[in-house]
């Protein structure tokens, strides 16, 4: 009854100008298989899938379905051929209901083009019941949590009878619990005959769910692996050299507490309390990692400390001095180093040279300033030494910063912020969209700053990164501090806290979940988390 199809990509090449995004890629997706495309950010996975989905036209190569070559002029053709896609950034209209979103593009109509959503509602209910999705067809999409929105995306594909479902980095926006549920859904879909192409760079998930793994690096297929392959093996295939996945950092030696946040509240322009009465402190020589799902107040918290937020109440004390109400420049002069979460928007000026970007905060000071002018020689000289020190891969410091890869751009930002004597270092998403090799380097620099005796605050939505770097972990949920727990708290407990449970409740719920294996998750287990900690790639 279930029609299955075999999908082959043969010699797919996609060129954007001079950039070769896909270079003769061959992939075969067998019916009823979960096929993982593993590769770093920018390896060309998404481009390949957009070619398959008809969004891009391949420069060369062909797509075969059940052995017959097909050509897609648009997503409509791909859907008609039985291919569905869940994009990394959801393709849902926020102000539409679930039913409207699902109907869009394949609307059932009554006479005269009038919408007939009842038909769609029935189909949603049907699929929702079959897979236990629990989705209300009449809910507005913008009111739904991210995990449910993702299910709506999956329903969209299933309603269109997708036989091959492409999931593009589906876990990037999910809490660990939602991720586990998604992996279950994938297994269920597979058992009902749907093939899945799973795009990811997270090794733990890939190993948990895949039948076959194809590794892509710099637009080329570099090999295939079985899910049984070791994490290190997969990582080195992905990166192209052996990488050390664990960061052997010394235990923290916290000294006196010099940074303190008391009762901090940030009010958004909408009047919402995006940060709501948060208090914490960081000692010198200690890393506090702020964990939480994206959009729970992390951005506003860091911006408030730097003085970028307007309506802030409470107190931010560094070395006993109040930072609140001072200008960004004064905060920087007080010794705060800040790596913003989006380097392209807030961290760098892409059209400025690397050398100029390296002195964005020091341009008006000696030795770079000379009266009202600048000293270009000194700026370049500084660039040369920073490029060496931070291993920034570029032929020259006078190239535009925008031409660098993500990892190297991040090194420029980090190099600039760490080039001053710091009293506090804040790094927001320090390794987002950064290649594995650079991650290792950036993490070591962060730990080195801690060992220098600087209080360090890391904000990351990647749980693995948090567990890797943290000496203590603070979890934010809806602008409030759920709790602060020691490093080594289990992934499950942290995941529950990220969903809003207090540390005690999380530990309790986790124990109940692991019925029979007492105390499995709640007690700190540095050894386990260390072993898992390498999976952040």
């Amino acid at each position, binding site marked *: 009854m279930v029609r299955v199809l075999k999908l082959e990509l043969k010699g797919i090449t996609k060129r954007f100008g001079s950039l070769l995004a896909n270079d003769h890629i061959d992939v075969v997706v067998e019916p009823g298989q979960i096929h993982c495309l593993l590769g770093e950010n920018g390896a060309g996975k998404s481009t390949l899938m957009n070619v398959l989905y008809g969004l891009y036209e391949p420069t060369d190569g062909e797509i075969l379905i059940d052995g017959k070559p097909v050509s897609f002029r648009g997503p409509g053709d791909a859907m008609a051929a039985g291919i569905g896609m869940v994009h990394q950034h959801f393709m849902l209209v926020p102000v539409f209901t679930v039913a409207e979103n699902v109907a869009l*593009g394949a609307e059932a109509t009554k006479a005269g083009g009038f919408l007939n959503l009842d038909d769609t509602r029935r189909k949603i209910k049907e699929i929702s019941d079959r897979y236990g999705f629990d989705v209300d067809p009449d809910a507005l999409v913008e009111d*739904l949590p991210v995990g449910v929105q993702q299910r709506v995306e999956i329903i969209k594909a299933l309603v269109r009878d997708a036989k091959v479902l492409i999931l593009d980095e589906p876990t990037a926006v999910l809490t660990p619990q939602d991720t586990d549920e998604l992996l279950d859904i994938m297994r269920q879909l597979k058992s009902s005959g749907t093939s899945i192409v799973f795009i990811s760079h997270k090794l733990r998930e890939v190993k948990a769910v895949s039948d076959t793994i194809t590794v892509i690096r710099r637009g080329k297929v570099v090999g295939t692996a079985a899910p049984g392959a070791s994490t290190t093996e997969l990582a080195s295939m992905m990166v192209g050299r052996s990488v050390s996945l664990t960061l052997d950092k010394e235990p923290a030696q916290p000294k006196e507490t010099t940074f303190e946040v008391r009762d901090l509240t940030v009010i958004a322009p909408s009047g919402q309390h995006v940060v709501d009465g948060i208090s914490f402190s960081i000692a010198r020589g200690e890393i506090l990692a702020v964990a939480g799902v994206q959009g729970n107040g992390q951005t506003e918290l860091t911006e408030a400390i730097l003085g970028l937020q307007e309506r802030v109440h409470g107190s931010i004390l560094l070395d006993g001095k109040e930072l609140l109400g001072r200008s960004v420049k004064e905060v920087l002069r007080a010794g705060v180093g800040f790596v913003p979460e989006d380097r392209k928007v807030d961290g760098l000026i892409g059209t400025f040279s690397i050398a100029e970007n390296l002195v964005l905060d020091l341009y008006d000071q000696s030795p770079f300033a000379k009266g009202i002018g600048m000293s270009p020689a000194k700026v370049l000289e500084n660039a040369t030494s920073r490029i060496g020190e931070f291993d920034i891969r570029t032929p020259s410091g006078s190239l535009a910063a925008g031409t660098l890869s993500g990892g190297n751009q991040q090194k420029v930002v980090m190099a600039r912020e760490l080039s001053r004597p710091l009293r506090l270092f804040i790094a927001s998403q320090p390794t987002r969209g950064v290649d594995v090799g650079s991650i290792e380097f950036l993490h070591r620099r962060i730990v080195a700053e801690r060992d220098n005796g600087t209080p360090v605050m890391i904000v990351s939505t990647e749980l693995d990164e948090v567990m890797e770097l943290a000496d203590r972990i603070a979890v934010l949920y809806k602008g409030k501090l759920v709790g602060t727990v020691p490093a080594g708290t289990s992934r499950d407990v942290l995941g529950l806290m990220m969903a809003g449970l207090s540390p005690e409740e999380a530990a309790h719920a986790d124990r109940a979940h692991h019925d029979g294996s007492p105390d499995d998750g709640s007690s700190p287990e540095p050894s386990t988390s260390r072993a898992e900690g390498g999976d952040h790639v």
Partner: protein
Amino acid sequence: MSTTTTAPKPGTPQPGTTRIQGSSAKPVTWKIPILLAALGLVAFVFFGVMGPNQTAKFGISSAGDFFQLPVIEVPAFLAGIVLSVVLLGLAGYAVYLKTRNQSAPRWLPIAFIVVFVVAFLIWLVGGARTPNISLAGLIAGSVTLAVPLVFGSLSGVLCERVGVVNIAIEGQLLGGAFTAAIVASITKNPFIGLLAAALAGAVVSVVLALFSIKYLVNQIIVGVVLNVLVSGLTGFMFSTVMQADPEQFNSPDRLPIVDIPVLSSIPLIGPILFRQSVVGYLMYIAVIVVWIGLFKTKWGLRVRAVGEHPEAADTMGIKVNATRFWNVTLGGAIAGIGGSFFTLVAIDSFTKEISGGRGFIALAALIFGRWNPIGAFFAALLFGFADNLQSIVTIIGTPVPSQFMAMLPYLVTVLAVAGLVGRSRPPAASGIPYVKG
């Protein structure tokens, strides 16, 4: 974790676990209560305490009606006091709700506006030299003045709903007015003029669409440039062609006023709904058709998706830029019909700048009406009312200088755009060109 399909409502405790309740709900602001209270005080002082002592008379029947309703006589001072107390009461209720952290219901500001306008009207007429006004004429006149505004704002709705900002409404109205006049004069047939006006509006739109969708030029700039271009072009044609031979080129026949028998004799609403020109009837039809089209049909779902999230529409196989192009063109045609009102209904000749900035008022009506055809219709009516009031006030002679009355539509616009009637949320992709990939 349970997979709830609706976001947890603030205040409803989650069973089982004590979740941290973030303040994720949209907070209630003081904006509306304060604004209402201030306006209420103004009303109390001016319309009430300092109110005129005459009796205001409102005629609500016109001569042709099949039954006559008596003239409403209102003691202005008493009415001013009573109505301003009602206004203060409404404002007080909004303040009370705010203190309980509830936002004012939708009807509250609307009711406030209605009562305020009534109080204002009574105050105005009560203070006039001849405290006597035909309400029927006032409302019918408002509708007439609103016709081009409604067509203009419908054009705006169609364009913005699909993601293109249409600043060129003014140019489309003017282009329609000019073309209607010249074509109707040459062909001696106002209906052909009407069609030509739609075509002219569409042509202006095609230029807007081409530059903003294909060549990705800033939509505001294209719109402004188009307005100046149409103004210059029609002005030039007017002084060179039309003025040289007005008999031949600038004397269109007017579109007839079609009286629907019996129905048009109903007092008050008869003249508004059933004694209109063809353009007037087309206006009612257009409002309803656009509303149904946008919210009840497959076409409308796709249009709105393109205006809200073009990538999503694209991945669902909808041709984003083609949809945009045709919608903008259709919008231009509708605005063009609105333009024909100036030269085929209101008067029977074209003059320079005959649209007189009404395209921009239409833009405000669109925002006031929250990008909804029916909302835009009522907003346009309000502006038409303010416009009409100005001319009537000059006739009956009130203490208020007519220049102040002339400011009224714009004052209303500022209040409207400042978000008096709740938060206006434009289509998310409005003004952003769509580039694939």
